[in-house]
């Protein structure tokens, strides 16, 4: 497997923060890629394909994370995930209570 790496800075744009609904979208999308993907906040690293690890990061509105991917489709992966962050996880459409 090639060791292509890709990174991207992202911000939590939606005002509800990184709770379970956006996280499940994130994890679902990340699982579609073969690359190893991590979401990094300061020293903490969470596997982007694991809902529980992502939940442990917290994720308040406005917070910044670093996306790091390693593998064949690393570039495509960070691209897709960054777009999801930028779109605020479609939270405004969903307007979910939790």
């Amino acid at each position, binding site marked *: 497997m090639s060791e292509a790496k890709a990174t991207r800075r992202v911000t939590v744009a939606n005002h509800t923060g990184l709770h379970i609904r956006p996280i499940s979208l994130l994890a679902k999308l990340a699982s579609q890629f073969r690359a190893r993907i991590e979401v990094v906040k300061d020293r903490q690293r969470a596997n982007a394909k694991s809902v529980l690890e992502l939940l442990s990061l917290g994720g308040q509105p406005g917070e910044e994370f670093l996306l790091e991917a390693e593998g064949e489709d690393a570039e495509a992966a960070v691209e897709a995930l960054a777009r999801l962050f930028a779109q605020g996880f479609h939270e405004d459409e969903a307007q979910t209570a*939790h």
Partner: protein
Amino acid sequence: MRELRGIPVSPGVAVGEALVLNVEGFSIPRRVIPPEAVPAELERLERAMVEVSDELARHRDAMNRDLGPKYGAIFEAHLMILQDSGLRNDLRELVRQKFYSPEYAVDRVVRRYAELLHKVRSRNLADLLDIEKRLLRTLLGRPREDFSQIGRPVLVLAHNLTPSDAASLNPDFVKGFVTEVGGPGSHAAIIAAALEIPAVVGTGPYLGEVTSGDTVAIDGYRGIVVLRPDAQALARFEQEAAKRRSRAAQLESLRDLPAVTPDGTRIQLFGNIEFPEEVQHCVDRGADGIGLYRTEFLYLGAQREPDEEDHFRAYSKVVQSMAGKPVTIRTFDLGADKVPHLPDPEEERNPCLGLRSIRLSLRYVPMFRRQLRAILRASALGDVRVMFPLVATLPELRHAKMILGEVMEDLAEEGIDFNRRLPVGIMVEVPSVVVMIDRFIQEVDFLSIGTNDLIQYTLAVDRNNKDVVSLYNDSDPAVLKLIEKTVQAAERRPVPISLCGRMSASPTYTMLLLGLGLRQFSVPPSAIPEIKRVCRSVTIAQCEAVARRALTLETARDVTRYLRGELRKYVPDFVD
């Protein structure tokens, strides 16, 4: 072996097999499995995960169909947590490598993630715990511990016991309990005392150190719990239990003797009860009647609000069992959160000061009327009195009496029998009542001083808050003065007055209370013999001298020391 210290809330000594509940209220029967069981247990774990996934998917689909996609989304999210590969791998590894049972593995893994989520204040912590409940329920094949199903003698060890848990404990099998949190005023404590089983609460965390099946010893007199006692400790406990048994037998002989002081003053000793079943204890101890029937226990643990018949059934049972002796029924004394069908109060920051007791009754009048109707109907069967809790102002009392009057009219119209002159009294537990006591005595037929809450409100201390519970003191000079003022006012009219808080059950205070003029005590039935013994050992003159001196002291500590010193002169081997 490990010794714990906690708050003793119900006397007794018990040694037996532990039944340990995890924080969610499940008892995990086994922590480790033999190596050869691993494949079968892994399969059981997989099956449980599949079953819960199916369950969640069904809920998701139903929600999506009935309410729309954003409601189904929560179950979708739970499903994703459950399908998280990290979670599954952790679980499998614990079973495979450390030989944990699947239940124990779930407990451990969830604990760990829960801590992480708690640290970031994740709003989804509850979702994780919900999944844990489903998994454990599936693995154990039943809902969280159903206390009514316990079929052998056990000592229950838990983080906490909700009032409904405690209310459903079967004393035939539950011989005592220990909880990590809780205080002397908690319902679990009251119920333990009612069931006459030893209980120790507020020990702090210990559940991680004990497993179901371990031997545990509880000393509910001194607040000591020993996990896995060695031979020496066991012997000590046995000795203590034997000593208590012989003392109980000694006091048994007092049963038919009256509570009369050597100088001829008759003291009335009433019993406090929560359930009709406890009346037998009162009868066995020779109580003069029921001084406090706490009716809120009809609501606790019930699936629906008790209706008039439920109330009437319980009250008539008590009245008939007391065969002519007075029964004082106190109306509902809790908050809305304890009533099944009422809306939960909005984030009450100070529930002690909130919408509860008489305030709740006056807000939800139909519920209040149901209870009053039942009390009035029971008044046709014996000497019934009604008492209102937490009255703070005259308008409140008048409003309650007005509603009582209306209910009486209804019953009269319906041709139903009741006592037109039903005595009406109030609990004296809010300081404002003591300040206005001269007015209140004009409008009641009797009073009962509820020191448990009176002390709380007077000293501004939450007795369930372990950080300040040391400030809560029966001996506080301010409290003593409030009691004195109330008793003196009652004597002026005169209005019968009793004291029904924990203080009245404590021999330390008997001389003081007698000396202040109190002649009626209402106590848990198990305390009757000890208080009777003190009454039979001291003259009123002696008590009055003690009271006079105690009221000059400035600190609770001095008061307690003085009272104990005096009591020892007349009852050298008293036990408190």
